[in-house]
Protein backbone atom coordinates (compact mmCIF):
# COMPACT_ATOMS: atom_id res chain seq x y z
CA UNK A 1 0.00 0.00 0.00
CA UNK A 2 1.41 3.40 -0.90
CA UNK A 3 2.03 6.01 1.78
CA UNK A 4 -0.29 8.67 0.39
CA UNK A 5 -3.25 6.28 0.44
CA UNK A 6 -2.58 5.49 4.10
CA UNK A 7 -2.74 9.18 4.91
CA UNK A 8 -6.16 9.98 3.44
CA UNK A 9 -8.01 12.13 5.91
CA UNK A 10 -11.39 13.74 5.57
CA UNK A 11 -12.95 16.50 7.62
CA UNK A 12 -16.23 14.85 8.57
CA UNK A 13 -17.75 18.19 9.53
CA UNK A 14 -17.96 18.90 5.81
CA UNK A 15 -20.19 15.85 5.35
CA UNK A 16 -22.58 16.53 8.22
CA UNK A 17 -25.45 17.96 6.17
CA UNK A 18 -24.95 15.55 3.29
CA UNK A 19 -24.71 16.84 -0.25
CA UNK A 20 -22.08 14.24 -1.18
CA UNK A 21 -23.78 11.53 -3.15
CA UNK A 22 -22.17 8.21 -4.06
CA UNK A 23 -21.81 7.59 -7.78
CA UNK A 24 -21.48 4.30 -9.62
CA UNK A 25 -17.74 4.56 -10.08
CA UNK A 26 -15.21 3.65 -7.40
CA UNK A 27 -14.25 6.56 -5.11
CA UNK A 28 -16.50 8.96 -7.05
CA UNK A 29 -19.17 11.25 -5.67
CA UNK A 30 -21.54 13.92 -6.89
CA UNK A 31 -21.22 17.13 -4.91
CA UNK A 32 -24.50 19.04 -4.75
CA UNK A 33 -24.09 22.78 -4.32
CA UNK A 34 -26.23 25.03 -2.18
CA UNK A 35 -27.99 27.49 -4.45
CA UNK A 36 -31.06 28.84 -2.63
CA UNK A 37 -33.69 30.14 -5.00
CA UNK A 38 -31.46 29.31 -7.96
CA UNK A 39 -29.70 32.64 -7.71
CA UNK A 40 -26.09 32.33 -8.79
CA UNK A 41 -23.83 35.39 -8.63
CA UNK A 42 -21.58 35.41 -11.69
CA UNK A 43 -18.46 35.52 -9.53
CA UNK A 44 -19.53 32.31 -7.79
CA UNK A 45 -20.32 30.70 -11.12
CA UNK A 46 -16.74 31.38 -12.23
CA UNK A 47 -15.36 29.80 -9.06
CA UNK A 48 -17.57 26.74 -9.50
CA UNK A 49 -16.35 26.35 -13.08
CA UNK A 50 -12.77 26.54 -11.84
CA UNK A 51 -13.34 23.86 -9.18
CA UNK A 52 -15.29 21.64 -11.57
CA UNK A 53 -12.49 21.83 -14.11
CA UNK A 54 -9.86 21.00 -11.51
CA UNK A 55 -11.57 18.19 -9.60
CA UNK A 56 -14.64 17.08 -11.54
CA UNK A 57 -15.69 15.47 -14.80
CA UNK A 58 -16.35 17.05 -18.14
CA UNK A 59 -19.72 18.51 -17.24
CA UNK A 60 -21.81 19.65 -14.32
CA UNK A 61 -25.46 18.78 -13.84
CA UNK A 62 -28.20 21.37 -13.33
CA UNK A 63 -30.58 19.64 -10.93
CA UNK A 64 -34.35 20.10 -11.05
CA UNK A 65 -34.17 21.90 -7.68
CA UNK A 66 -31.96 24.65 -9.05
CA UNK A 67 -28.67 23.24 -7.84
CA UNK A 68 -25.44 22.82 -9.73
CA UNK A 69 -24.02 19.35 -9.11
CA UNK A 70 -20.33 18.65 -9.60
CA UNK A 71 -19.88 15.19 -11.10
CA UNK A 72 -17.06 12.64 -10.68
CA UNK A 73 -15.48 14.14 -7.57
CA UNK A 74 -13.01 11.76 -5.88
CA UNK A 75 -13.75 11.50 -2.15
CA UNK A 76 -10.13 12.27 -1.40
CA UNK A 77 -10.71 15.75 -2.86
CA UNK A 78 -13.66 16.56 -0.56
CA UNK A 79 -11.73 18.89 1.72
CA UNK A 80 -10.02 20.68 -1.17
CA UNK A 81 -13.31 21.07 -3.07
CA UNK A 82 -15.07 22.48 0.01
CA UNK A 83 -12.17 24.85 0.73
CA UNK A 84 -11.84 26.14 -2.82
CA UNK A 85 -15.59 26.58 -3.29
CA UNK A 86 -15.50 28.46 0.02
CA UNK A 87 -13.12 30.98 -1.49
CA UNK A 88 -15.99 31.89 -3.83
CA UNK A 89 -18.52 31.84 -0.98
CA UNK A 90 -20.10 28.68 -2.37
CA UNK A 91 -21.35 26.02 0.05
CA UNK A 92 -22.40 22.39 -0.34
CA UNK A 93 -26.09 21.44 -0.16
CA UNK A 94 -27.82 18.64 1.75
CA UNK A 95 -29.42 15.27 1.17
CA UNK A 96 -31.22 12.77 3.37
CA UNK A 97 -33.82 13.48 6.06
CA UNK A 98 -33.15 17.18 6.33
CA UNK A 99 -34.56 20.55 5.36
CA UNK A 100 -33.35 20.99 1.79
CA UNK A 101 -32.27 24.12 -0.04
CA UNK A 102 -35.40 26.13 -0.86
CA UNK A 103 -36.34 26.77 -4.47
CA UNK A 104 -37.81 30.02 -5.75
CA UNK A 105 -38.71 31.88 -8.90
CA UNK A 106 -36.88 35.04 -9.85
CA UNK A 107 -39.13 37.04 -7.54
CA UNK A 108 -40.31 40.59 -7.84
CA UNK A 109 -37.13 42.64 -8.26
CA UNK A 110 -36.95 42.29 -12.04
CA UNK A 111 -39.84 39.98 -12.97
CA UNK A 112 -42.98 42.07 -13.59
CA UNK A 113 -45.26 39.18 -12.50
CA UNK A 114 -43.68 38.78 -9.07
CA UNK A 115 -45.87 39.96 -6.20
CA UNK A 116 -43.52 39.17 -3.30
CA UNK A 117 -39.79 38.90 -2.79
CA UNK A 118 -39.36 35.13 -3.10
CA UNK A 119 -35.59 35.47 -3.35
CA UNK A 120 -35.37 37.12 0.02
CA UNK A 121 -37.64 34.44 1.52
CA UNK A 122 -35.57 31.60 0.01
CA UNK A 123 -32.33 33.10 1.30
CA UNK A 124 -33.74 33.62 4.77
CA UNK A 125 -35.12 30.07 5.02
CA UNK A 126 -31.81 28.72 3.72
CA UNK A 127 -29.85 30.71 6.26
CA UNK A 128 -32.01 29.77 9.23
CA UNK A 129 -33.36 26.28 8.53
CA UNK A 130 -31.09 24.61 5.96
CA UNK A 131 -29.94 21.15 6.98
CA UNK A 132 -32.24 20.87 10.01
CA UNK A 133 -32.71 17.15 10.67
CA UNK A 134 -36.35 16.13 10.54
CA UNK A 135 -35.79 12.68 12.02
CA UNK A 136 -38.11 11.19 9.41
CA UNK A 137 -37.66 12.18 5.79
CA UNK A 138 -36.64 15.01 3.48
CA UNK A 139 -38.40 18.36 3.80
CA UNK A 140 -38.72 20.66 0.82
CA UNK A 141 -39.76 24.28 0.71
CA UNK A 142 -40.50 26.29 -2.43
CA UNK A 143 -41.51 29.88 -3.20
CA UNK A 144 -43.56 31.10 -6.13
CA UNK A 145 -43.98 34.84 -6.55
CA UNK A 146 -47.48 34.74 -8.01
CA UNK A 147 -50.27 32.29 -8.88
CA UNK A 148 -48.61 31.44 -12.22
CA UNK A 149 -46.57 29.31 -9.84
CA UNK A 150 -43.61 28.37 -12.05
CA UNK A 151 -41.92 26.59 -9.06
CA UNK A 152 -45.00 24.33 -8.56
CA UNK A 153 -45.17 25.30 -4.92
CA UNK A 154 -47.90 22.79 -3.96
CA UNK A 155 -45.55 19.86 -4.68
CA UNK A 156 -43.33 20.93 -1.77
CA UNK A 157 -43.72 19.85 1.85
CA UNK A 158 -44.45 23.52 2.48
CA UNK A 159 -45.15 25.60 -0.60
CA UNK A 160 -45.52 29.38 -0.69
CA UNK A 161 -47.28 31.33 -3.41
CA UNK A 162 -47.23 35.12 -3.60
CA UNK A 163 -50.64 36.75 -3.21
CA UNK A 164 -52.24 40.15 -2.94
CA UNK A 165 -55.72 41.15 -1.89
CA UNK A 166 -57.19 43.90 -4.09
CA UNK A 167 -59.62 46.58 -3.04
CA UNK A 168 -61.47 48.97 -5.32
CA UNK A 169 -61.64 52.69 -4.75
CA UNK A 170 -64.94 53.39 -6.52
CA UNK A 171 -64.28 57.12 -6.78
CA UNK A 172 -61.05 56.58 -8.70
CA UNK A 173 -62.59 54.02 -11.10
CA UNK A 174 -63.13 55.34 -14.64
CA UNK A 175 -65.27 52.31 -15.68
CA UNK A 176 -62.90 51.32 -18.48
CA UNK A 177 -63.59 47.63 -17.81
CA UNK A 178 -59.98 46.52 -18.33
CA UNK A 179 -59.85 44.75 -14.97
CA UNK A 180 -62.99 42.75 -15.73
CA UNK A 181 -61.47 41.70 -19.06
CA UNK A 182 -58.14 40.79 -17.42
CA UNK A 183 -59.55 38.78 -14.55
CA UNK A 184 -59.22 35.14 -15.57
CA UNK A 185 -61.16 33.95 -12.53
CA UNK A 186 -64.43 35.75 -13.18
CA UNK A 187 -64.04 37.62 -9.91
CA UNK A 188 -64.61 41.04 -11.48
CA UNK A 189 -67.60 41.79 -13.69
CA UNK A 190 -68.76 45.06 -15.21
CA UNK A 191 -72.29 45.79 -14.07
CA UNK A 192 -75.01 47.28 -16.29
CA UNK A 193 -74.59 50.58 -14.48
CA UNK A 194 -70.89 50.77 -15.38
CA UNK A 195 -69.94 49.86 -11.84
CA UNK A 196 -67.67 46.91 -11.10
CA UNK A 197 -68.93 43.89 -9.19
CA UNK A 198 -66.26 42.01 -7.23
CA UNK A 199 -66.85 38.38 -6.19
CA UNK A 200 -64.19 37.72 -3.53
CA UNK A 201 -64.76 33.95 -3.49
CA UNK A 202 -63.50 33.69 -7.06
CA UNK A 203 -60.37 35.77 -6.51
CA UNK A 204 -57.07 33.84 -6.62
CA UNK A 205 -55.04 36.84 -5.41
CA UNK A 206 -53.02 37.21 -8.64
CA UNK A 207 -53.11 41.01 -8.66
CA UNK A 208 -53.80 41.30 -12.40
CA UNK A 209 -56.50 43.91 -11.68
CA UNK A 210 -54.05 46.09 -9.75
CA UNK A 211 -51.45 45.77 -12.48
CA UNK A 212 -53.79 46.57 -15.36
CA UNK A 213 -55.79 49.40 -13.79
CA UNK A 214 -54.85 52.69 -15.54
CA UNK A 215 -56.31 54.89 -12.81
CA UNK A 216 -54.97 53.09 -9.74
CA UNK A 217 -58.50 52.43 -8.54
CA UNK A 218 -57.54 48.86 -7.62
CA UNK A 219 -55.16 48.91 -4.70
CA UNK A 220 -53.19 46.24 -2.86
CA UNK A 221 -54.43 46.16 0.71
CA UNK A 222 -52.88 42.85 1.81
CA UNK A 223 -49.77 41.07 0.58
CA UNK A 224 -48.18 37.80 1.58
CA UNK A 225 -48.12 34.11 0.84
CA UNK A 226 -50.77 31.51 0.18
CA UNK A 227 -49.38 28.46 1.99
CA UNK A 228 -49.99 24.85 0.99
CA UNK A 229 -48.68 21.93 3.02
CA UNK A 230 -48.13 18.24 2.40
CA UNK A 231 -47.07 18.12 -1.24
CA UNK A 232 -44.46 15.86 -2.78
CA UNK A 233 -43.74 14.10 -6.03
CA UNK A 234 -41.99 10.75 -6.47
CA UNK A 235 -43.71 7.39 -6.68
CA UNK A 236 -46.78 8.48 -4.76
CA UNK A 237 -47.36 12.16 -5.48
CA UNK A 238 -49.50 14.39 -3.30
CA UNK A 239 -50.61 17.93 -3.92
CA UNK A 240 -50.42 20.09 -0.82
CA UNK A 241 -53.59 21.76 0.41
CA UNK A 242 -54.35 25.23 1.70
CA UNK A 243 -53.38 26.00 5.31
CA UNK A 244 -52.84 29.77 5.37
CA UNK A 245 -53.45 32.89 3.32
CA UNK A 246 -51.62 36.23 3.22
CA UNK A 247 -48.89 35.01 5.55
CA UNK A 248 -46.54 38.01 5.82
CA UNK A 249 -43.05 37.47 4.41
CA UNK A 250 -41.45 38.11 7.80
CA UNK A 251 -43.41 35.23 9.40
CA UNK A 252 -42.27 32.58 6.91
CA UNK A 253 -39.39 31.09 8.93
CA UNK A 254 -41.47 30.86 12.13
CA UNK A 255 -44.31 29.26 10.21
CA UNK A 256 -42.06 26.57 8.70
CA UNK A 257 -40.49 25.94 12.12
CA UNK A 258 -43.96 25.37 13.57
CA UNK A 259 -44.84 22.91 10.78
CA UNK A 260 -41.51 21.11 11.32
CA UNK A 261 -42.14 20.78 15.06
CA UNK A 262 -45.55 19.23 14.40
CA UNK A 263 -44.03 16.84 11.83
CA UNK A 264 -41.19 15.76 14.12
CA UNK A 265 -43.67 14.99 16.88
CA UNK A 266 -46.45 13.32 14.87
CA UNK A 267 -44.19 11.18 12.67
CA UNK A 268 -42.39 9.70 15.68
CA UNK A 269 -42.01 5.97 15.09
CA UNK A 270 -43.58 6.12 11.62
CA UNK A 271 -40.25 5.62 9.85
CA UNK A 272 -39.27 7.33 6.63
CA UNK A 273 -42.54 9.14 5.90
CA UNK A 274 -43.12 12.61 4.40
CA UNK A 275 -45.32 15.13 6.16
CA UNK A 276 -48.12 14.80 3.57
CA UNK A 277 -48.74 11.19 4.56
CA UNK A 278 -48.65 12.14 8.23
CA UNK A 279 -51.33 14.79 7.60
CA UNK A 280 -53.45 12.15 5.87
CA UNK A 281 -53.01 9.85 8.88
CA UNK A 282 -53.55 12.46 11.60
CA UNK A 283 -56.13 14.54 9.77
CA UNK A 284 -55.47 18.16 8.76
CA UNK A 285 -57.24 19.63 11.81
CA UNK A 286 -54.38 18.62 14.09
CA UNK A 287 -51.87 20.68 12.08
CA UNK A 288 -54.39 23.49 11.50
CA UNK A 289 -55.01 23.97 15.21
CA UNK A 290 -51.27 23.83 16.00
CA UNK A 291 -50.65 26.58 13.43
CA UNK A 292 -53.62 28.59 14.61
CA UNK A 293 -51.88 28.97 17.97
CA UNK A 294 -49.06 30.98 16.43
CA UNK A 295 -50.67 32.44 13.32
CA UNK A 296 -54.38 32.99 14.08
CA UNK A 297 -54.86 35.81 11.56
CA UNK A 298 -53.57 33.77 8.62
CA UNK A 299 -54.56 30.14 9.16
CA UNK A 300 -57.66 29.07 7.24
CA UNK A 301 -60.79 27.87 9.05
CA UNK A 302 -60.76 24.44 7.48
CA UNK A 303 -58.90 22.46 4.87
CA UNK A 304 -58.67 18.97 3.43
CA UNK A 305 -55.78 16.47 3.52
CA UNK A 306 -53.16 16.49 0.74
CA UNK A 307 -54.67 15.07 -2.42
CA UNK A 308 -53.37 11.93 -4.09
CA UNK A 309 -52.29 12.34 -7.72
CA UNK A 310 -52.67 9.24 -9.83
CA UNK A 311 -49.57 8.66 -11.98
CA UNK A 312 -50.47 5.31 -13.49
CA UNK A 313 -53.22 6.97 -15.50
CA UNK A 314 -54.35 4.75 -18.34
CA UNK A 315 -52.88 1.58 -16.86
Amino acid at each position, binding site marked *: *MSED*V*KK*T*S*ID*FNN*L*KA*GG*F*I*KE*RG*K*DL*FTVRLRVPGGRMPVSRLKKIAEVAEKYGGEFVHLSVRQSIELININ*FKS*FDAVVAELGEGDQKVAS*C*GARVRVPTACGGCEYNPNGLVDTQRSALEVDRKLFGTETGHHKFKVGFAGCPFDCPKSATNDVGFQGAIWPELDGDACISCGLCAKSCTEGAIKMGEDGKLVFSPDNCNYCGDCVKVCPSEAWKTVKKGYTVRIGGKWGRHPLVGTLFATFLPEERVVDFIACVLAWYKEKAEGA*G*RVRIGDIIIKEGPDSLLSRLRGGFPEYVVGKTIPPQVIATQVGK
Partner: protein
Amino acid sequence: MQTVDLRGVCCPTNFVKAKLALEMVDAGEVVEFLLDDGEAVKNVPKSLKGEGHKLLGLKESDGYYVLTIEKVED
Protein backbone atom coordinates in the same frame (compact mmCIF):
# COMPACT_ATOMS: atom_id res chain seq x y z
CA MET B 1 -10.85 -8.61 13.93
CA GLN B 2 -11.48 -4.87 13.97
CA THR B 3 -15.05 -3.67 14.53
CA VAL B 4 -16.14 -0.24 13.33
CA ASP B 5 -19.37 1.00 14.84
CA LEU B 6 -21.14 3.15 12.27
CA ARG B 7 -24.49 3.21 14.03
CA GLY B 8 -25.90 6.71 14.28
CA VAL B 9 -23.58 7.88 11.52
CA CYS B 10 -25.50 9.08 8.48
CA CYS B 11 -24.85 8.91 4.75
CA PRO B 12 -22.37 9.56 3.27
CA THR B 13 -20.17 9.80 6.36
CA ASN B 14 -20.72 6.13 7.24
CA PHE B 15 -19.53 4.98 3.82
CA VAL B 16 -16.52 7.31 3.80
CA LYS B 17 -15.53 6.17 7.31
CA ALA B 18 -15.83 2.54 6.19
CA LYS B 19 -13.60 3.26 3.19
CA LEU B 20 -11.00 4.94 5.37
CA ALA B 21 -11.07 2.03 7.84
CA LEU B 22 -10.41 -0.39 4.99
CA GLU B 23 -7.54 1.77 3.75
CA MET B 24 -5.80 1.27 7.07
CA VAL B 25 -5.70 -2.53 6.92
CA ASP B 26 -3.85 -4.90 4.65
CA ALA B 27 -5.42 -6.88 1.83
CA GLY B 28 -7.01 -10.09 3.08
CA GLU B 29 -7.84 -8.65 6.51
CA VAL B 30 -11.43 -8.74 7.66
CA VAL B 31 -13.28 -5.78 9.19
CA GLU B 32 -16.69 -5.83 10.84
CA PHE B 33 -19.03 -2.85 10.49
CA LEU B 34 -22.13 -2.16 12.57
CA LEU B 35 -24.80 -0.42 10.49
CA ASP B 36 -28.21 1.07 11.16
CA ASP B 37 -31.29 -0.38 9.52
CA GLY B 38 -32.69 1.68 6.62
CA GLU B 39 -30.60 3.78 4.26
CA ALA B 40 -27.28 2.78 5.84
CA VAL B 41 -27.67 -0.97 5.37
CA LYS B 42 -29.19 -0.50 1.92
CA ASN B 43 -26.26 1.54 0.68
CA VAL B 44 -23.00 0.80 2.50
CA PRO B 45 -22.64 -2.95 1.78
CA LYS B 46 -23.37 -2.51 -1.93
CA SER B 47 -21.07 0.48 -2.22
CA LEU B 48 -18.15 -1.32 -0.55
CA LYS B 49 -18.72 -4.34 -2.76
CA GLY B 50 -18.80 -1.99 -5.73
CA GLU B 51 -15.32 -0.81 -4.74
CA GLY B 52 -14.03 -4.34 -5.12
CA HIS B 53 -14.06 -5.58 -1.52
CA LYS B 54 -15.43 -9.00 -0.64
CA LEU B 55 -18.68 -9.23 1.27
CA LEU B 56 -18.36 -12.13 3.72
CA GLY B 57 -21.58 -11.62 5.61
CA LEU B 58 -24.52 -9.37 6.46
CA LYS B 59 -26.66 -10.32 9.41
CA GLU B 60 -29.39 -8.57 11.33
CA SER B 61 -28.71 -8.39 15.03
CA ASP B 62 -31.11 -6.79 17.44
CA GLY B 63 -32.18 -3.76 15.42
CA TYR B 64 -28.94 -3.20 13.55
CA TYR B 65 -26.78 -5.03 11.02
CA VAL B 66 -23.34 -6.60 11.20
CA LEU B 67 -21.45 -6.38 7.93
CA THR B 68 -18.29 -8.41 7.45
CA ILE B 69 -15.94 -7.29 4.69
CA GLU B 70 -12.62 -8.65 3.50
CA LYS B 71 -10.31 -6.04 2.09
CA VAL B 72 -9.29 -6.60 -1.53
CA GLU B 73 -6.37 -4.55 -2.88
CA ASP B 74 -6.88 -2.65 -6.16
